[in-house]
């Protein structure tokens, strides 16, 4: 793993006597490769390594007795700092219900995560309402309804012949009249380059004024993660990220890319297919995972 590689590099370098800045640069190339192999975005990795170099030189790693260890420590600290604090808190609206809009690419885990988050809220004594606003994917509404039944959470649906904007508006009215304190709206997966569908999301946003817009991101995304996150954020002003399928063996560098490019906190992680497979985000665990 990276720690071992850095120890080896510095051990070899130390053999030559005093370390130079060029030696540190060579070692940092290993950090960059480790990040790229972990699917961290190319530009994020570049900026990150530049930052590590600043600190390494500034903290006189060259004079250290254990430069390899020191660089690993700096990398770890910077990764944790970049990924932000542990955050399982959803914002609450001053005027209930708090509306949470779930958005993201096709197959990222929105429908499953909507139900997981609803179940998590129910466990906290809240009264969430789920809204089925994906009218395109075959049996998408049915999928949310089945998950609603499994968790004893009501699902608002108007079928697939009514626009998602209208469904969202009426779901909000339903939540208000039934005293639900949270409304979680599941939307269809879409490409960030599909103008019409991205406009649909801005229309939903304008109609129901969500307190949280959660971008659901598959943890195994590669270099494209930055393009996707940047576009969704620019269009909607995302307020949080849900990183799914972290129970896989992906290194998960997309987490770093998405966080770096949007500045949004990672609020939840999906760690399994079952509805209890939801955890808060632990930046230190993510840091060690990315570094392998």
């Amino acid at each position, binding site marked *: 793993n990276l720690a071992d590689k850095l120890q080896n590099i510095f051990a070899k370098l130390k053999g030559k006597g005093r370390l130079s800045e060029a030696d540190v640069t060579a070692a940092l190339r290993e950090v960059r490769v480790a990040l790229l192999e972990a*699917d961290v975005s190319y530009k994020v990795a570049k900026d990150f390594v530049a930052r590590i170099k600043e600190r390494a030189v500034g903290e006189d790693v060259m004079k250290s007795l254990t430069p390899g260890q020191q660089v690993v420590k700096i990398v770890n600290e910077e990764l944790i700092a970049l990924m932000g604090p542990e955050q399982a808190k959803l914002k609450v609206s001053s005027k209930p219900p708090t509306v949470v809009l779930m958005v993201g690419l096709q197959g990222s885990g929105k429908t499953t995560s909507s139900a997981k988050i609803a179940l998590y809220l129910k466990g906290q004594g809240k009264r969430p309402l789920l809204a089925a606003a994906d009218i395109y994917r*075959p*049996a998408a509404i049915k*999928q949310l309804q089945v998950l609603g039944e499994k968790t004893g959470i009501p699902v608002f649906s108007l079928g697939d012949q009514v626009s998602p904007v209208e469904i969202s508006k009426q779901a909000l009215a339903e939540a208000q009249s039934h005293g639900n304190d949270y409304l979680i709206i599941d939307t269809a997966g879409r490409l960030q380059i599909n103008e019409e569908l991205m406009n649909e999301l801005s229309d939903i946003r304008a109609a129901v004024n969500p307190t949280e817009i959660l971008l659901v991101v598959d943890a*195994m995304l590669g270099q494209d993660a930055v393009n996707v996150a940047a576009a969704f954020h620019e269009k909607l002003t995302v307020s949080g990220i849900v990183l799914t399928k972290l*129970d896989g063996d992906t290194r998960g560098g997309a987490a770093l890319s998405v966080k770096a490019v949007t500045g949004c906190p990672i609020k939840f992680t999906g760690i399994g297919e079952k509805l209890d497979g939801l955890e808060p985000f632990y930046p230190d665990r993510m840091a060690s995972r990315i570094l392998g």
Partner: protein
Amino acid sequence: AVFSGAVDDDFFEELEDALICADVGVNSSLQLVDVLRKRAKKDHIKERQELWQVMQEEITAMLTAGGDGEIVIEPDKLNILVLTGVNGAGKTTTIGKLAALYTGQGKKVLLAAADTFRAAAAEQLATWAERAGVSCIRQEEGADPAAVVYDAIQAAQARHVDVLLVDTAGRLQNKTNLMNELSKIGRVIDNNAAEAHTEKLLVLDAGIGQNAISQARLFGEAVELTGLILTKLDGTAKGGAVIGIVNESGLPVKMIGVGEKTEDLRPFQPADFAAALFN
């Protein structure tokens, strides 16, 4: 833009960066850059534009190393296509597209809803079956997927079906019990349809990064794969990770998904794919 101008050190660095940004991965990118560097030296190539052709040829060669990329449907026998892959890759939708494709070719098609786990999985596949005008073998949620496959094989043989399309549940490759379940499905097919032509296809989302390599490796250990299907190439992701996979496993990419509609399925064209990496 990478391929215009003179061949210099900057070029090889820019090329490496472009390949990495296309998810080709560090090792495969360095490999490709090295090939180009050697060719440029050997043939005294001064213009980047000349190396563009070499790059496409080299990537195409890497992608076709495992043989030509066609899903083979043999006449006068049962053909079984099993689609497997991680959660959300596009298996069910791709089966819907294949059902329409083969029905349109006058073939008799049957679907098997062997995802008995996920909410509304069978309903989703049933909708695609309806669209193609074909039948779908399904059991209740929680049934043994291998039992569904067994039933589907019996039905396919009895009804003289040309193509049986088997949908499986999404599964992450590090889940040993789910990989074992997949192996069992493979054995049910081998033991009960030995005379059939079988294709076991791994469905990969073009947006996935280097984890695709691990997927191909571990799914390949669970069942003997015959090819890959790369989905969601209509997005901004380039799917470059397949280069490393094909290089390592020799598995050809057989089809690509370019959208969510029935007609959004095309045969894989390595040269087009290679060119698109640099768009």
